[in-house]
Every structure is written in C-alpha cells, then in structure tokens.
C-alpha cells in the first residue's frame, strides 16, 4: 500500500465507523421506542430521535475533540509547561525532543505537531488528532529518560507516520466512539434493571409478538455485547498499522536500527503505563497494559490484541537495517 492508498483507506474506514456507530445508536433508540414507548401507546419516536441526535453529536465531538479528550485522560502536559518548570539538564533533554520532532516533521514535509509529555515512568508514546494540521504527539517521561537521541528519533518517526497516513484520525474516532458505546451500554443495562418493559396486550397479533420477542432479545444482546465489539474493533484497526508505521518511520529516518533498539528498551520495561487508560491503548507504540495476547499471532490475537508481537516488529526492523535500508 502506498501513502495515498493508506490515507484513502483511513478516510473510508473513519466514515464507515461513524455511520455504523450512528446506525447502532438508532437501533438502540428504535428498540426503546418499540418496547417502552410503543407499549404505552405513544406515537412520537422519542428514543430514535434522541439516539440519532446523540449519535451525531458524539461523532462530531469525537472527530473535533477526541484528541483533547485522549490527551486529558492520559494527563498529558503541553511541552511549553513542562519546559517552564524544568531544570537545566532536563531542559537539554526536552529541547532534544523538540528538535527530534522538528527533524521528523521536516523529513515528512508536514507542519510540526503539538508536543505533550505524560508524567509516567513507563516508556510509551502515542499520536492523536484529526490530520497533519491538527496533530499531537505525546511521549511519556519514562521514554524520554531511557532512550538516546537516535532511538527517540525512531519513535517520533513512527508516530509521525501515523500522523501522515491519517491513522490518527481513525484511531482517535475509534477511541472516542468506543468510549461512548461503553457509557451508553452501561446506561442501557441500568435502565433495564430499573424497569421491565410492558408487553402488548394485543392477542390478535401473535406472530408479531414472537417476532417482537426475538427482536427484543437481539436488542438486549446488542446492548450487552456492544462494548466488547467496540473493543475488538479498536484492536483490529491498530494491529497491521503498527508494522506499517514502523516501516514508514524507518523510511523517514533512514535508520531502522534506531527504532529497533528503542522497541527493545520499551519491551524490556515490563511495568504497565498507568496513566494511559484502556480506551487509548490501541493508539500507543506499545501496549500500555502489557497483555499476553500481544505475544501471539493468529485469529484470536487479531481480534483481541492491540499490538503485534514486539519480537516480530524488532526482527522486521533489523532485517531492514541488514538489507541496507539505512543507507540512502
């Protein structure tokens, strides 16, 4: 896949996910209308309308504000703030990070993304935003501490590739909508606990009654399974992407060895990244939760692991370096 195809595919998938999300909410609302309002004899489809409005608003909010929400949730601090309160030797390190980001922005021919530091000692990083003109890169303090300049450059190049091929747009919207689904499903379950829906007393419509029950059961299953499906979706969109971003990152630095050795260091740090929560896991360069599932390849891993096995990624990068991919 070339860059243009990647961008096109990401644009399409973003639309697909937004439409699926709104449609899903509509179905939830429709169910609410049929089983609660409809039973009471109402004619106005309140549930459907509210669900449709809610879906559209949260999709828009996710598109325009998803990056800020993700950054806020992971306690990311803007570079300017961190720099202002840093000591002299720390300033050197931070300035180095700024320079490395500038270098990679130049190499990719993109504007410089906003830069954030997450006060967490586990090495990790992610990029978010809705496109190259509205992009942010967040790096944990731990990453800054363990990596040397060359390795830092590799990681930033990896993130810059996510920015360039619009992965960030898709992953941010997935993060925002998966969060919304989880929240709504929780509400759905609570409302079910409080009130049992009334059945129609219309005996003349028995066939419709059976169908109604089937639809009602499907509706319940949808509510219960929604967060799980949303989670699997988030995982699926991120797995192949990491290999791609590794490769195009190496193309930017012309130095696959830098990223390979950075990944080795990140892999060696076993502690989970506490400040990055589950919702943003699929956006990170390495799984912040440190799950076992990521070690394996196969169907189940494709469904539920957010990241490809680190060893395979490192091996692929080393092979690139061996083939002379580092010499332009």
């Amino acid at each position, binding site marked *: 896949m070339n860059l243009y195809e990647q961008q096109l595919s990401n644009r399409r998938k973003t639309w697909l996910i937004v439409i699926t999300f709104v449609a899903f909410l509509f179905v939830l609302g429709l169910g609410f209308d049929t089983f609660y309002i409809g039973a009471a004899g109402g004619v106005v489809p309140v549930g459907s309308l509210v669900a449709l409005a809610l879906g559209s608003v949260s999709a828009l909010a996710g598109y325009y504000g998803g990056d800020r929400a993700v950054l806020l949730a992971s306690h990311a601090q803007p570079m300017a703030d961190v720099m202002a309160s840093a000591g*002299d*030797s720390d*300033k*050197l390190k931070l*300035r*180095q990070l700024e*320079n*490395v980001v*500038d*270098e*990679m922005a*130049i*190499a*990719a*021919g993109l504007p410089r993304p906003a830069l954030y530091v997450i006060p967490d000692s586990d090495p990790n990083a992610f990029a978010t935003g809705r496109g190259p003109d509205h992009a942010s890169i967040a790096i944990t303090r731990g990453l800054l501490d363990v990596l040397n*300049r060359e390795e830092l450059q590799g990681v930033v190049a990896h993130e810059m590739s996510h920015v360039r091929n619009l992965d960030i747009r898709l992953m941010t919207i997935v993060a925002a909508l998966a969060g919304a689904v989880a929240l709504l499903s929780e509400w759905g379950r609570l409302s079910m606990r409080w009130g049992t829906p009334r059945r129609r007393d219309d005996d003349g419509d028995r066939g419709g009654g059976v169908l109604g029950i089937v639809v009602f059961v499907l509706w319940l299953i949808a509510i219960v399974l929604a967060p799980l499906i949303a989670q699997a979706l988030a995982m699926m969109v991120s797995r192949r992407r990491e290999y791609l971003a590794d490769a195009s990152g190496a193309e*930017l630095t*012309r130095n696959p060895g830098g990223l390979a050795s950075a990944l080795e260091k990140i892999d060696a740090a076993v502690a989970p990244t506490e400040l990055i929560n589950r919702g943003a896991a699929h956006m990170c360069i390495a799984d912040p939760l440190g799950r076992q599932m990521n070690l394996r390849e196969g169907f189940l891993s494709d469904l539920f692991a957010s990241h490809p096995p680190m060893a395979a990624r490192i091996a692929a990068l080393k092979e690139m370096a061996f083939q002379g991919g580092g010499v*332009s």
Partner: protein
Amino acid sequence: MFGLLLLGIVVLLVVWGIASYNRLITMRNQTLNGWKQIDVQLKRRHDLIPNLVNAVKGSMDFERDTLTAVMEARAKAQTATGPADAAQKEGQLSQALGRLFALAENYPTLKSNDNVKMLQEELSATENKVGFARQFYNDIATKFNTAQQVFPTNIFAGTLGFKPSELFEITSEADRAVPTVDLSRHA
C-alpha cells in the same frame, strides 16, 4: 453522431490537459518550497556558529586555528552560489565543526558546560534538519521530475516551460562521512 464523438474526445483531452498542467504546477511549487526549507535550516546553522565559537573561545584559546577555520568555512558557505557549490562548502563547514567538537573533548570544563551542551545539541539538530530537508527535497523533486518525463506528459511539459529539478548528490568522499558531533560517545 461522429461529430458528437469527436467533441467528446476533444473535451476529454482538454480536461486531461488542464489536470496534468495543474498537477505539474502544484508539484513545482512543492519542490520550490522544499528547496526554501533547506535554505532556512542552513541560515539557522550559520547563525548558531558564532554563538558556539564565543562560548568555547575562553577555554579553547590554544586552538585558535581551529576556531578561525570554522569561522572562515562559515563565511565561505554563506556566499555560496548554486546547489553544487553550496553542498561542497557546507560539507567543508561540517568538517571544520567536526574537528572543533573533537578537540573540545580535551576540555572537561566545556564537556560539562550546560550552555555548550545546549549549543551542541542545537548544532547537531540543525545538521540533521539540513539532511532531512534535503532528503525531503530529493523525494519530492524526483516525483516532480518523473511526472514530467512519463508519457504522455513529456510531450508538452518541456514546451510549457517545466524543467527537471536538480537533485542533491553527495559530491566528494569526504562529505559522505558526516562528522559526529556527539561528545558523550567518546567519553
């Protein structure tokens, strides 16, 4: 019927012609912009050098020759004309800087000086930026050149005044070896 077909073909050709022309213009502007970015970074490097020389002058008084060599190489690089000339003179400047940093190794006060360390980081970053700006320029200029040379665009690209852009090449063996400006590596 035949006339309609002919009209259709002519319209298609005109649309294609306009699209190709606009694409070439866009690419030419991108290439020019890529070229400007290199200049921006080179200018920055030239601006940083006097600061560095001033910061180390006190401690490295014995190495007056090296410092003068750096300043002379900088002056030459600033007056370079054309890409080939610039590439060669910037290469010489890099070498002069490399020698300066190698000598600075012998001065522990310099190695531990935060100001010097910061300047060194800025200079090596600028050096990288020059390199990456060139890399980006080469990539985009290659695309521009290819777009001009493929059939059938090549039929009219020349007549409309599009010229292939010159690529950066590493001219001499000495320039190929980029000097490392990393004090900590040897320590």
